[in-house]
């Protein structure tokens, strides 16, 4: 009986989404007819490369030789001692080329764009990490690159804006709506509709219409597959818990997905709690939102009673998004993953702790995972192990943090 149940659950997790891109009631293709042809072309191309050995070999080689994978699974001994609970391991995505997990996905989509003969790539970006990762791949493949970025984020993430420009990308400031990530995504979609013949839209997270949530996930699962093998090699066991921050949710799904069928592994997705989930000023749709439709998919959203999307707040630009990948919505509803929040203050404290105790400067996004991971580890036994996904490095955030703390650089 147990065997059957296990087999069923394995099949269930791995067979999602269905052929129309649905994860249960979530996901799908809620897009204008003007985008449908492009989405169907992309879906067909993506279906082809999933099993294409030449493509997959090229992808693996680029991850090894260009990105620098595998990224280490590092036992954070001093942090573990300080917290006094479970052993804390860090999956070091911050050590990837360009400084975050985002490059795993842009390498994959960049290769796909090349295969489809597209000469121009566009992207949206919040913190700028995905924009940098896209500009990097475009430079390497000799493609024209345009990155849409909310005007407010351009101010918050000046170093990354300069980095993208150095890489040859054009950065377009988006002045509409709340001038953040969601508006950058709207603007990129509008560009795509207009220039659909020669342009490939590299979405940076597991959101958007099908096939993006599945495709971006598949490019990011390298994180979890490596972590599983590394944990096996280091301790001959599975971890007891996984912790990752969730904005759109690509680093989290990348870590979680290969472990979904391992029921002994608990999982925690940490949203941007802003000033506190009760304050209403946060970016935590899974903790405090409702299902709705935005950016081509059905998922949990931050919305008002009229169905208008409301502005989010997070100290971290990468988490400042009112939606979340539809697979996370499904994983929440079926109870497989726990979704929690860390506040701005908790993330900032964790930022300093990790920097001082381990000599690792984490991105503000990843600091949310560190904050909750430390809290969680403290409640666990010393023989237990947790993996925190250190999705990016914090160099890009030092201006923000200095400003918050009243320090002039």
């Amino acid at each position, binding site marked *: 009986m147990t065997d059957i149940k296990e087999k069923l659950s394995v099949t269930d997790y791995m067979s999602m989404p269905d052929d129309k891109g649905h994860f249960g009631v979530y996901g799908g293709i809620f897009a204008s007819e003007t985008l449908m042809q492009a989405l*169907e072309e992309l879906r067909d191309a993506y279906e082809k490369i999933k099993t294409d050995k030449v493509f997959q070999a090229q992808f693996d080689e680029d991850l090894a030789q260009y990105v620098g994978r595998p990224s280490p699974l590092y036992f954070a001994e001093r942090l573990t001692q300080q917290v006094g609970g479970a052993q804390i391991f860090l999956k070091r995505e911050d050590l990837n080329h360009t400084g975050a997990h985002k490059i795993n996905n842009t390498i994959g989509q960049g290769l796909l764009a090349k295969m489809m003969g597209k000469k121009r790539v566009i992207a949206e970006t919040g913190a700028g990490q995905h924009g940098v990762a896209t500009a990097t791949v475009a430079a390497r493949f000799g493609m024209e690159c345009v990155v849409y970025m909310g005007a407010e984020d351009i101010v918050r993430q000046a170093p990354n804006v300069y980095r993208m420009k150095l890489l040859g990308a054009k950065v377009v400031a988006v002045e509409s709506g709340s001038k953040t990530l969601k508006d950058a995504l709207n603007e990129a979609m*509008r560009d795509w*509709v*207009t220039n659909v013949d020669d342009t490939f839209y590299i979405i940076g997270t597991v959101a958007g219409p099908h096939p993006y949530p599945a495709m971006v996930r598949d490019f990011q699962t390298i994180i979890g597959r490596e972590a599983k093998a590394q944990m096996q090699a280091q301790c001959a066991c599975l971890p007891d818990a996984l912790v990752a921050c969730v904005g759109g949710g690509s680093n989290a799904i990348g870590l979680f997905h290969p472990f979904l069928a391992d029921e002994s592994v608990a999982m925690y997705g940490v949203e941007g709690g802003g000033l506190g989930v009760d304050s209403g000023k946060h970016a935590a749709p899974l903790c405090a939102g409702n299902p709705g439709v935005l950016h081509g998919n059905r998922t949990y959203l931050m919305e008002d009673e009229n169905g208008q999307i409301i502005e989010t707040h997070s100290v971290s630009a990468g988490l400042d998004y009112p939606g979340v990948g539809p697979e996370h919505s499904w994983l929440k509803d079926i109870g497989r993953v726990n979704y929690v929040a860390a506040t701005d203050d908790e993330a900032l404290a964790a930022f300093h702790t990790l920097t001082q105790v381990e000599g690792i400067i984490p991105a503000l996004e990843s600091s949310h995972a560190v904050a909750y991971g430390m809290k969680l580890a403290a409640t666990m036994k010393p023989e237990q192990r947790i993996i925190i996904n250190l999705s990016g490095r914090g160099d890009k955030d030092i201006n923000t943090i200095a400003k918050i703390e009243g320090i002039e650089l």
Partner: protein
Amino acid sequence: MSRLAQRFAELKTQGDKPKKALIPYVMASDPSPEITLPLMHAMVEAGADIIELGVPFSDPMADGPVIQLAAERSLKHNTSMHDVFSLVSEFRKTDDKTPVIVMGYLNPIEVMGYQSFAQQAATSGIDGVLTVDMPPVEADEYVPALKSQGLDPIFLLAPTSTPARIKKLAEVASGFVYYVSLKGVTGAATLDVASVETKVAEIRQFIDLPIAVGFGISDADSAAKVASCSDAVVVGSTIVKKMTINSGKTEQERSIIIKEISEILSSMRSAMDRL
């Protein structure tokens, strides 16, 4: 017979030659809540056959800057779906003939529930619903909910629509279909009439419904050209641009906007009728 079907039938048979429908698009409560009702009546007076009423959404992904700003202006007044229902109810008190369709994005409908939305929309006197981000492939519950209340589900077609998707649309659409005449967002400038003609002919092989063409229609001349190869002409950004003349707060300000829009529609009407 639905108001939309009735209207298209009349246009074909009334008068000495068949006429094409003129469909203006305005956003509800843009630039002020007080302007929309008198504007709707004035547009009918100026020659509009069907009114397309925009429902604002915070994230209008398929719209260009003109309609985006219209949505932002409307949302400054917290315009809700219920406000749109009230507006159409008022309109119906003195105009029971002119079809009104609402156009917007899915989430404001999703939050109400399809059934509840459809029931209230029909009660208020709305005739059709065009939801930009609701394609036929996702519409298994949406279409029956609208049709159960006698509402026409209106869908978009594009230059890139394949025969397979046109056929799928033909199974669920009613009222009319809306052909987006170019690749891009609303308010784009160029219009290639020859390619519109070719695509409309292709669509007619699969669909019996009237075909309206929108996007890129900026003056009487382009309206007439598009009318010559379709059943209806949708004009949006060109008239929505007039909403920035003033704030529409006073009676006098509103009458200036209404006059300008009426003049555009009258000139389009006469150009289309000269065909």
